[in-house]
């Protein structure tokens, strides 16, 4: 019988802990937008939480920032993997302190930076991003005409898959990424079906698989991306991006009929963190590097098989001239 009692006591103790913590917090207001992760700063040190997005380029930013914050400035860094738009919400709530690479979200910027002022813009991270449609180089070399969108319909039958039926397949990745592909296919009268891989991981796996077989494919892809080093790809020219077209697109996203813009990637900080974040905030504000730097780290993570931390260490050891200037002056 005693065992049952102990088991019961154990459950009671746990329930008690929960009830106690509930009552501890149950006087006055509790603003849940100011609550941090229970795993944050367990070692009782200064701590920063960074948002990692699902693509590897973003992981490289975070890996290097984390490594330097930990080894140069003595911070404890937590990382949280969040998709792009929820990350804005988390940033606004202070669940994360900084986003190091944003590809442009005008709606969120308006709501959080301009109206609520809970997020502060942190300047560019030095990398310029570009989204586009890409075909593999081995295919483009044989058929140079396919790099113009006018000729895409002629090769649609070569790009059929079981998912796209009797149309050509245009492969898209994660639903969270910025994309106008469905509107583009419709407005440019292309005989293509947009097939969503569902996640970047799935998309990369599929591209590698195609490349191994030297099969033709057409995919939504973006620069900077480490996969270019493994599978060289050539961009397909879409109708030129113009301000007029962009304006039309903001009014009605269904009407867009031109290429994607080239975006300088931006950093954003939680306003509170930007003001009171001390040397970590100063360091992250200074954080600025190049496409090549980022790709170097990304590739050692994604195809070199190094952990993010090892990859960051390797880059940091090689390029002190770059990161020395990020450290806040004492």
């Amino acid at each position, binding site marked *: 019988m*005693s*065992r*049952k009692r*102990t088991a019961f006591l154990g*459950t009671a103790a*746990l*329930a008690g*802990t*929960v009830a106690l*913590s*509930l009552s*501890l*917090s*149950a006087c006055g*207001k*509790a*603003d*849940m*937008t100011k*609550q941090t*992760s*229970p*795993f944050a700063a*367990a070692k009782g040190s200064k701590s920063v939480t960074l948002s*990692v997005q699902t693509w*590897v380029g973003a*992981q490289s930013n975070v890996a290097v920032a984390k490594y330097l914050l930990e080894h140069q400035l003595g911070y404890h860094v937590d990382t*949280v*993997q*969040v*998709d*792009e*738009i*929820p*990350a804005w*919400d*988390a940033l606004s709530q202070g*669940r994360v302190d900084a986003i190091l690479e944003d590809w442009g979200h005008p709606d969120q910027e308006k709501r959080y930076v301009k109206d*609520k002022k809970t997020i502060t813009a942190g300047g560019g991270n030095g990398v310029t991003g570009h989204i586009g449609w890409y075909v593999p180089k081995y295919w483009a070399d044989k058929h140079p005409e396919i790099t113009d969108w006018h000729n895409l319909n002629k090769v649609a039958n070569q790009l059929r*898959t*079981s*998912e796209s*039926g009797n149309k050509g397949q245009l492969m898209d990745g994660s*639903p*969270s990424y910025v994309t106008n592909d469905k509107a583009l296919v419709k407005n440019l009268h292309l005989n293509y079906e947009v*097939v*969503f*891989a*569902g*996640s*970047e*991981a*799935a*998309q990369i*796996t*599929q591209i590698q*698989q195609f490349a191994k077989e030297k099969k033709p494919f057409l995919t939504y892809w973006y620069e900077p991306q480490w996969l270019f080093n493994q599978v060289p790809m050539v961009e397909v020219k879409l109708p030129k991006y113009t301000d007029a077209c962009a304006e039309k697109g903001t009014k009605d996203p269904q009407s867009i009929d031109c290429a994607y813009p080239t975006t300088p990637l931006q950093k954003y900080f939680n306003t509170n963190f930007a003001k009171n974040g001390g040397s970590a905030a100063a360091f992250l504000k200074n954080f600025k590097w190049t496409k090549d730097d980022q790709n170097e780290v990304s590739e050692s*993570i994604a195809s070199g*098989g190094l*952990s993010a931390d090892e990859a960051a260490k390797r880059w940091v050891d090689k390029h002190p001239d770059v990161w020395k200037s990020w450290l806040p002056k004492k």
Partner: protein
Amino acid sequence: MSTASAPPAVQRGLGADAPKAGPVQALLERRGLAKLLLLAVAAAVLVPLVHAAWPGAAWPSALTIDLSGPLGKTSDWIIDNRDNHWLFVYFLGHLSNAVVISVRAVYLLLLALGWAGVTAGVTLIAWRVAGWRIAATALVSLLVSGVLGMWVPTMQTLALMVVAVAASVVVGALLGLAAGLSERLFRILRPVLDTMQVLPAFAYLLPVVLIFGIGVPAALLATVIYAAPPMARLTALGLRGADPGVLEAVSSLGATGRQRLLTARLPLARKELLLGVNQTIMMALSMVVIASMIGAAGLGDRVYQALASVDVGAALSAAIPIVLLAIVMDRTTAAAGARIGATATTAGPAWLRGWQVWTGVTALTALLALAGRLTGSAVWPGAWFVDIAHPVNDFKEWMVDHLYSGVPVIGGTADWAAHFTNWVLNPLRDGLTALPWYGTLLIVAALAWLIGTWRTALTAVLAMAAIGVLGVWKPSMNTLSQVLAALVVTLVLGFGAGILASGSKRFEAILRPVLDVMQTMPQFVYLIPVVALFAVGRAPAAAAAVVYALPAVIRITTQGLRQVDPAAMESARSLGATRWQMLRQVQLPLARPALLLAVNQGVVLVLAVVIIGGLVGGGALGYDVVTGLATGDLALGLVAGVAIVCLGLMLDRVTQPTERRTTGKGA
């Protein structure tokens, strides 16, 4: 309701001497025939009317409601008011705060104990509760987690699990207590709980995230919502199942209502209570990875992050501790349940019973924790570390290289996937989409009514109609086609393996650990290798679903066949039946209830994974949920989530024999 439970009993009696299994079938068919006739009459009257009003196969747009406006407004309102409205500041804020404080407390305790303390504590508890074999498993499991470099994430997950399971057990037990004592509450709660158990966890994420934001509180609450129902269900059943004779005796001794509850009903129900705890733990653990999509951190997050960089090896190193944790917890609570069932077996030296041993366990844990601290790092020592990611990735590469395509004669996996998509999934999807919507409703009604009562049929039809009203008929038919295709494959393989396993003890012994691992491995880990083998699309989603649902189907089939009355087998054998005849004419008909249960479980599990398949190109509803989550689009995600719920409800009702539901009802 009660008449529906009769056929199996009749069948058992007749099936033995009439191997044709005819009478029951005929009985069922006759009653089924009547139902079908009634439906046909109703259809004959209604269909022309409906068809005249809304021609075309797709759900008529006149009958849909567009919720994107109001839902978008709700979402904006929540975001704008989250830091000042009283509902958030005085209620939900405290809830979230309590979660943070409790998880943090447990986490700090685990860190303070250090690896030595935690390992010793868990092993000793497992030893006391479940015996030395399970203790050894626990010891090995924790050491493996450390060696894989996953100690800190494991502790984070453990902390989250401890709090989530405690909260689920308390919430579930309270609900169960209420339902166990009040007839009316029981009637209200029962269908709700039954339904919650069949819903894919994915459907819960979005609303929780919207209210609490990304982070541990949201993850924990989603876990509790998912894991509490089995506890509530089993508590209620346990309380209601108490022997009326005993209760009568207790009340005749003059016990008050409370005394009766505490001294008779609860102790009598302890087996169900422990089973409830066991199920709650398993459900909570199955949420670990899914919840990491909304910020649960820990092992789940490692799996999720590794998959983002297509690193199956790293994902596996994080998945192994999850599987081990699940196996240890399952065996420990199961053993505790079994022991409580048979108190006599616990006899041992006096010092091994009672409070002394628990003091001893605590003291020893503290001692080892201290020793661990003195010898060095409290966290796992960095030098003891084995990297399995590289070999695993190499193996995956090799597999993909050799199997993907161009394998002589049988063709590569990619070719199979393409054939599966072209010859099975596409026709099925097109067929379901082309079928007039009222036709679909009629088929659903007929199936649900044949297997259950008019009530189940009504629920199923209403669920389907709700999908149409929400305006997601087409993607739902797409998802449904994937579920059906995957289900057929699962059943063919599962019944086959189940029949083999029931015939051979040795085969079953080999199969058992494999099934354990398959059942507890997070579904996410399957996704990437499956894409590598079957290309992006609906085929890999279906393949992952088959892998996930197989173990349950095999288990239930094996058990069902094993439990067939030996007398019936013996008499068949004495009549000179061959092995094949016995199987076909005695075993399978007699195991019918178990086989139906296997179908039901299979369909629920397949649906859960087909939804997650949205991450690998499964499209349809799963993709909408993922998109909703990833872009914070409540309208899209929530509508898809509700459609999944309805689809799950319909599939469950169509496959669930009413007999299963009446077993508990008798109490």
